[in-house]
């Protein structure tokens, strides 16, 4: 999920949703994951579980989340992860490990009837199952929301879209978006309050660093792909990089090493992304089909999604004056 220590470095400010316009390249896994954890935490599972026990809370999340975008006249483009990069697979392995621990704890909590612990642990054990992946894509297609498939990290591809001018913002909770060179990143898109805008240029200016140096500083602190150097926090990382210029000089001076440091660096500097994508930003959802898909085919309680569908409909039926120019 990126390193939260980057927050202390990044220039971040709250920005009202109404002031955001244009296209947001959303890191889809990241976004869905947020909805899964909150939906599961706060609503009863029978509302989004089919007769055979398949959980499709993601469908509620998508409908709610898209309504929020449309209502504020921003166009989402969903960027899905491709295969994990080799380095990240270690992180995934450790998350799996953690999930097993949570699942064991969940089992115990259920036996003991500890409601609070159950709710907390259920949200932590959520994962993007094949069903969730598949149904998410199908629903997005019915709602005519553009989807881009990333060759590797969705976040890197989303940043690439913004760099090429095909989108205005990256949408991700992950501070790593900064390291992938995303000029503007919106966080807190799934929360009730105002989103946060993370600005790369302002961040570099504040610390008088180049993007390459920022990446080096982040590697010292630790990223999704590597453990940081113990004892180096955001402040030290910045001052060390400023003083010595780059990662290697800092490590040499301190007598420290970082496993795979050069590969992690390469991953941020030259991420695996593609120019091979295309999408239309005029969105014409098939609401009837989308409603049927969610409530009939996947047995989600209509009450859970109706209000959000109405909000999407509101957007879909309002024309723009540009149609007549």
């Amino acid at each position, binding site marked *: 999920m990126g390193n939260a220590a980057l927050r202390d470095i990044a220039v971040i400010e709250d920005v009202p949703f109404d002031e955001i316009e244009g296209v947001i390249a959303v890191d889809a896994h990241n976004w869905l994951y947020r909805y899964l954890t909150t939906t599961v935490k706060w609503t009863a599972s029978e509302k989004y579980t089919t007769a055979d026990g398949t959980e499709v809370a993601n469908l509620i999340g998508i409908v709610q989340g898209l309504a929020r975008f449309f209502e504020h006249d921003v166009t989402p483009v969903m960027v899905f992860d491709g295969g994990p990069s080799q380095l990240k697979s270690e992180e995934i392995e450790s998350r799996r490990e953690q999930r097993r621990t949570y699942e064991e704890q969940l089992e115990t909590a259920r036996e003991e009837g500890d409601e609070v612990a159950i709710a907390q642990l259920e949200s932590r054990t959520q994962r993007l199952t094949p069903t969730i992946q598949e149904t998410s894509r199908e629903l997005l297609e019915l709602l005519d929301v553009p989807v881009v498939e990333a060759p590797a990290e969705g976040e890197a591809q989303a940043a690439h879209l913004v760099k090429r001018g095909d989108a205005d913002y990256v949408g991700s909770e992950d501070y790593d978006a900064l390291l992938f060179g995303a000029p503007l990143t919106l966080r807190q898109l799934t929360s009730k309050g105002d989103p946060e805008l993370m600005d790369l240029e302002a961040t570099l200016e504040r610390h008088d660093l180049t993007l390459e140096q920022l990446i080096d500083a982040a590697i010292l602190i630790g990223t999704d792909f590597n453990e940081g150097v113990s004892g180096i926090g955001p402040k030290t990382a910045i001052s060390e990089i400023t003083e010595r210029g780059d990662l290697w000089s800092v490590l040499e001076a301190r007598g420290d090493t970082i496993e795979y440091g050069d590969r992690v660096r390469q991953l941020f500097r030259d991420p695996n992304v593609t120019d091979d994508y295309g999408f239309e930003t005029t969105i014409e959802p098939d609401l009837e089909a989308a409603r049927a898909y969610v409530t009939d085919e996947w047995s989600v309680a209509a009450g859970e999604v109706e209000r959000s569908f109405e909000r999407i409909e509101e957007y879909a*039926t*309002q*024309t723009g*004056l*540009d*149609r*007549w*120019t």
Partner: protein
Amino acid sequence: MFKAIVSAETLTSALDSVSVLVDECKIHLEEEGLEIRAVDPANVGMVDLSLEAAAFESYEADGGLIGVDLSRLEDIAGMADSGQLIQLELDEETRKLHIQIDGLEYTLALIDPDSIRQEPDIPELDLPARVVLEGKDVNRSVTAADMVSDHIALGVDEGEEFFYVDAEGDTDDVHLELTREDLIDLQVGPAHSLFSLDYLKDMNKAIPGDAEVTLDLGEEFPVKIYFGFAEGLGQVTYMLAPRIQSD
């Protein structure tokens, strides 16, 4: 170069009719008068405003362009009583607008016009029906519709020759008919379109009750709403895109 003296009432009317749609706008300071054109971020409602030089007590300009924060400027104009005069002068060097109201001096920092949303192209519309009515009837229609719904249908009955307003709520409905006798003028044509009341309510706020308002309408077409102010020396035109009618 821009230097002008204008009554607070005229300036306020002009600013209010734009600020119902946008927070910032570009103002063209033409030799013949002021021009403002702006569209809301969703591209649904547009305003096109002109205020002739003759509407000012004095007016000198040579084609400059400034960007302003409308609520700021409205706040300042609000410091004057409606009959009072407001003096405006652009400092080209500092890009600031000096505003004087009876000894009160205010220096307003302007906004870089390039940072303001691009001015919209004006849709080319050939609207078959025309309804001319009093501002207070527009207000009555919008207010009544707003009690029951988020949308309002505006149309013309070609056979019976009247203008009508429809709003359907979940439980209650509103219907209003205005015949030739109730209207200032009516040109009959095929017209029925549905509009968002959110926008129409905002536009309505800027329409004076005693103004003569013209509505040009078509079938699922934008409505063009226009009226004069400042004794006819100012003109406001709104355009509002329709909603698609599902049923």
